[in-house]
């Protein structure tokens, strides 16, 4: 997946966020050589400021401290190594088609845009794609996905608002079978994980999918806004209860937020980040790579 130009594109996407990171983690190390008495306390604060979370930050700092490293440079490379090690790698996709992917998440995290972007990515890889507008709750959500489908020139399945989202999953699968489509991408309504009835609705969609298509949903991706704080971990836990998650899409990485919450999520749930969203345009999505992600976060702009 390391296609040419990947690093460049990720860098551009992360450029602006790196400016901020540079003033936090990156800048922390620049110009530092020795380790003074407040070194680790300050480092922990920089990690916290990146939403890495208390538990993960403390573990990292404690482990670095215990290694009795002598220079800031050694700490830096060890920190990078450990952060990369925390992030699980995405497992390759299976070979059975059609392949159904469910996109879930809270309100406003960017599900619809993400579905469109990943649809475009798969299409550019020569796969056939069908979008399913199973967000029948939010006003004009279906229209939004339909406009995307038009732009990308891929088929879309939708019904009027208020329709049963599980019925749309059913329709989508039938349509995909009939037209021998490779990828079914299902956009779902945003739901806060505290709404039991909406989480139950999600379970039902999963059930219908697996009944109509063996092995489905083949992937269930939680779309996570990079600006989210510690609630991101709670979201993962709770969604996991309703539909087994297979990975994360980290959106809005073109802002100043760093999405540090993925480290907490990785530590607790071993969920890999599959893609990151770095802009508003259809092509602004990238497959995720832990090494490049961490490297880019630490990079100090000259």
């Amino acid at each position, binding site marked *: 997946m390391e296609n040419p130009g990947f690093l460049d594109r990720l860098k551009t996407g992360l450029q602006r966020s790196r400016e901020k990171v540079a003033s936090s983690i990156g800048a922390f190390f620049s110009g530092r050589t020795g380790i003074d008495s407040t070194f680790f306390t300050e480092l922990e604060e920089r990690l916290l400021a990146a939403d890495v979370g208390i538990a993960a930050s403390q573990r990292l700092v404690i482990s670095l401290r215990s290694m009795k490293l002598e220079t800031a440079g050694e700490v830096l490379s060890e920190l990078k190594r450990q952060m990369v090690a925390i992030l699980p790698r995405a497992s390759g996709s299976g070979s059975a088609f059609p392949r159904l992917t469910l996109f879930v998440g809270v309100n406003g995290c960017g599900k619809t845009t993400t579905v469109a972007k990943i649809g475009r990515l798969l299409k550019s890889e020569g796969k056939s794609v069908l979008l399913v507008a199973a967000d029948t709750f939010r006003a004009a959500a279906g229209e939004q996905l339909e406009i995307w489908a038009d732009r990308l020139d891929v088929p879309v399945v939708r019904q009027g608002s208020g329709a049963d989202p599980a019925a749309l999953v059913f329709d989508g699968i039938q349509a995909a079978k009939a037209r021998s489509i490779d990828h079914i991408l299902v956009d779902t309504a945003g739901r806060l994980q505290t709404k*039991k009835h909406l989480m139950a609705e999600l379970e039902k969609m999963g059930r219908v999918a697996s009944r109509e298509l063996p092995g489905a949903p083949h992937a269930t991706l939680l779309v996570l806004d990079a600006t989210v704080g510690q609630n991101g971990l709670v979201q993962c836990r709770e969604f996991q209860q309703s539909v087994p998650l297979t990975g994360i899409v980290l959106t809005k990485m073109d802002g100043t937020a760093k999405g540090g919450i993925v480290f907490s999520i990785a530590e607790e749930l071993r969920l890999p980040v599959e893609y990151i969203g770095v802009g508003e345009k259809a092509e602004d999505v990238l497959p995720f790579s832990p090494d490049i992600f961490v490297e880019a976060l630490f990079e100090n702009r000259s």
Partner: protein
Amino acid sequence: MLEGLSDKFQRIVKRIRGEGTLTESNMEEALGEVRLALLEADVNVVVVKNFVEHIREQAKGQEVLLSLTPAQQLIKIIHSELVAVLGGPSDAALLKGRDSLNIKGFPSVFFLVGLQGSGKTTTAAKLALYLGKRSLTPLLASTDLQRPAAREQLRILSDQHHLRYFEGKSTTVRELGRECFNEARLKGFNPLIIDTAGRLHIDDALMEELVVLRDALKPSEILYVADSMTGQDAVRSSQAFNERLALTGIILTKLDGDSRGGAALSVREVTGKTIKFAGVGEKSGDFEVFQPERMASRILGMGDLMGLIEKAEEAVSIKDAQRLQEKLRKNAFTLDDMLDQIRQVKKMGSLGDILKMLPGGMRLPSETDIDDRAILHTEAIIQSMTLLERETPNVIDGSRRKRIASGSGRSVQEVNQLLRSYAEMRKMMKRVRFGKRIPQLFQKST
């Protein structure tokens, strides 16, 4: 809201309470816990530092160490400091439960601005609905030419709630803004609420577009819509929006989730702007004037009793309440009355919402499934009874139970269960009549 904080604080209090006296060292420990709690709640690192420092100073100044009930005093200090950060005594209107919207000009113009996905469009409709209740005639419009179907979303929401919406024909944001302004002025709508496109605070071109729109329309309110789930980045984005546009206020959204909402503290601290409203649910009526006192109480685990009382007042008429009291006094509480009660509770919102407002209520284990359908089932069962059965449940024998079960589509066991809880309730009512239980219930936490 901020349950995490309240959890933590409750633990701290317990610990201090256990030690009896507040010493210099255990106060440091308590403050350390406060720091962690705030960080876990996503309050910005710098804001946390300031907050803890304030508390330390305040605590010293008030000679907490000599105080008779140090734990209570520390809580009081934390509480008032939280109120100060969240609202501050200067926001007098908020403390009185009134909004502090600035309605100036014909029409006056309100902007809703913020990052993508913070909830601007939903909030626009909620705000219009709220203003409608204030006997104003708002006009909704959107200058979001960016996101596909964004304007369609606002149009549909307006239709659903019988709100006035204007689409316009212009193709640039500035012209569209002007067109909406003229429409509002000609047709006598006031205020004009403009839902703007979501944008990143570092997107110069789009931020400039907002500045141009602002200079053209001179809004009396520029409200920053902030997602309460935001993490550390909340300070950067809100600060940037404020520097560029000079915000007039903040609206917090998605407070019905279980995020700890520390962003509220951060945003308030770095912008210095009033948090004017809070979005607390999916329905368009789930929108209220932000109340710093109440929020601070929630943070401290005192529960949102004020909110509960208000909801109850809305749902239960005084006459109903008096009638019920009379019944209680005579111990003539029937199944019909139980049905009434259930319906009143339903009017107050979902059971989950209500439980959250009770002291300690927010600490219900998350597995406790609060099923609102159970209320429906109970309703169905009671409605399948004859009037006689509702008045004198003693007559309900085996065959009646069977009939009621099939009439309501529930099982006989469920009918039995309902009758048992009714009997329990009657027993409880007897005790309540003598008025000793309720105060105890409310003192449970802190």
